[in-house]
């Protein structure tokens, strides 16, 4: 193919990047400063519709809204689209429910230094999932485009590779310099869940440590649920407006979920439960044992608190907190 010809990625674009359509949605979205307190059960039941495209905040196992991820499995949500952006344990849990059947991929299957998830790998090799390739930055910029209210952004990655060929990006030229770019289309997820350190009842929230693309994700998504370690008075938000990470008008529901990132790492709160994460990776090797494990840990538990209790409860959380604070003596 000559270098003068503009190439186009061959795979499926799962969501529309049309900005006027998105504006139509955002026009109707409530901006009222009113309490949005809800429950995990209610949010997943009412805010996640069949065929919805969803995205999960945080990075891998760090600051993920795991109560929501579990509930998606518990309520048997299927046929979702998923943004496989810096996903690790969240991806692994969603695979346990086979919740999605189409997926934008930047990083999937792996749990970084911990190794790969056998169950996630089996699912992604099964042919059951329609996939489109991207990169971490490409998905970050797709969310940024949506957050900015434009239908595409130019990017200098992906060019020349199969990652581009199996994406849904399009090569474009800069109107000023002629520079070639990968144009990446805006990604407006239908539903996003983000776990934070502190939020008021309106959804003004604060995070510390890893932020990834969550500010853009909150802006880009049509419906956003915040799970928070702690609800805080709105006056404390007003005392430090510079610290507000996501403003209330992006948010549709707020739920207090202490230890809501377990078994992942919540920065400045508790470290990841590496033993339990190893248990996941281990049990997945045997599909039947894995099925029993998922049933016991998620499907047969009433809620996320029961999952926490099964795995050591407050005592375990205190230990993980000690690791995070580097006050553990073991």
């Amino acid at each position, binding site marked *: 193919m000559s270098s003068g010809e503009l190439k186009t990625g061959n795979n499926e674009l799962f969501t529309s990047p049309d900005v006027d359509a998105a504006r139509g949605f955002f026009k109707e979205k409530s901006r009222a400063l009113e309490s949005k307190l809800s429950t995990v059960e209610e949010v997943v039941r009412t805010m996640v519709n069949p065929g919805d495209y969803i995205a999960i905040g945080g990075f891998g196992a760090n600051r993920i809204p795991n109560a929501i991820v579990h509930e998606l499995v518990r309520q048997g949500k299927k046929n979702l689209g998923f943004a496989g952006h810096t996903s690790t344990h969240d991806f692994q849990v969603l695979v346990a429910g086979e919740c999605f059947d189409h997926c934008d991929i930047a990083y999937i299957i792996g749990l970084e230094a911990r190794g790969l998830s056998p169950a996630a790998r089996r699912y992604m*090799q099964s042919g059951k999932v329609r*996939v489109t390739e*991207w990169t*971490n*930055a490409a998905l970050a910029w797709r969310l940024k485009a949506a957050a900015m209210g434009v239908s595409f952004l130019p990017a200098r990655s992906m060019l*020349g*590779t199969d*990652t581009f060929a*199996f994406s849904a990006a399009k090569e474009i030229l800069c109107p000023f310099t002629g520079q070639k770019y990968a144009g990446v289309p805006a990604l407006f997820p239908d539903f996003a869940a983000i776990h934070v350190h502190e939020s008021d009842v309106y959804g003004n929230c604060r995070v510390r440590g890893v932020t990834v693309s969550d500010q853009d994700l909150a802006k880009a998504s049509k419906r956003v649920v915040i799970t928070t370690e702690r609800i805080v008075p709105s006056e404390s938000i007003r005392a430090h407006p510079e610290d507000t990470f996501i403003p209330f008008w992006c948010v549709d529901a707020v739920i207090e979920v202490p230890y809501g990132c377990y078994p992942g790492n919540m*920065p400045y709160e508790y470290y990841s439960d590496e033993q339990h994460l190893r248990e996941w990776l281990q049990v997945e090797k045997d599909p039947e044992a894995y099925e029993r494990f998922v049933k016991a840990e998620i499907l047969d538990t009433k809620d996320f608190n029961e999952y926490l209790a099964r795995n050591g409860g407050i005592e375990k959380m205190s230990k993980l907190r000690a690791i995070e604070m580097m006050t553990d003596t073991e």
Partner: protein
Amino acid sequence: MAEYNAMELMICVASRNLEDGATVVVGTGAPCAAAMLAQKTRAPNLCTMFEAGGIAPRLPAMPISVGDSRTFYKALHAGSMPDVMETCQRGMVDYCFLGGAQIDMYGNINSTLIGSEHHKPKVRFPGSGGANDLASLCWRIMVMTSQDAKRFTEKLDFVTSPGYLDGGESRYEAGLPAGTGPYRIITNMAIMGFDETSKRMKVLSVNPGYSRDDIQDNCGFDLLWSDKLADTKPPSSDELRILREEVDPNGYIIGRG
């Protein structure tokens, strides 16, 4: 001379390529160890960046995720993923490290899949993650990997991250930033660079205990050889001590060697 394993050698070699005052995006594992070793030896002000946003932390321990708390510990800045990627895209990041299941003679890397059906591969890997971005946007790409003829292959099943693509000027014709590309491939057997014109992989230095034949036999394509082929300098006792006692005291990485 001190004994050492292949992982220790690769980490020491990699660390020597990171000069003081440079910026490097690191992941977990060996690249992180190489950057920490560099900081504790000749490059105290090497600025480490993690793609999830942690900038220049004082790592209290080896991170298990590029986004975990440790990558922000006493950091100078907690940026975002777009921040870090855009800093790379702007040309402010000197080095990055990549790994993968396959690499070809132009330094292209596969970390996506083995097989021919994209949605139903024989073996699925994590995909690009940030690898394609870093390989596209940083000035110098380095790879640390063990060497065998399956991994060093004539043709990749999937080009996840760009090396020099089809060689010559093809990387830049594709739109990738001028002057960027694979810089060093560091294996258990050798240190490779790339020919300036053809952009083919070229052996610069042979590791202790290996021969030219070993290196070529464990490579699925024809290697070029430097006119000034050198012997890789083994780890010094200082490097090994710091690596073992300060960088990875639990042997998480060098234990695997």
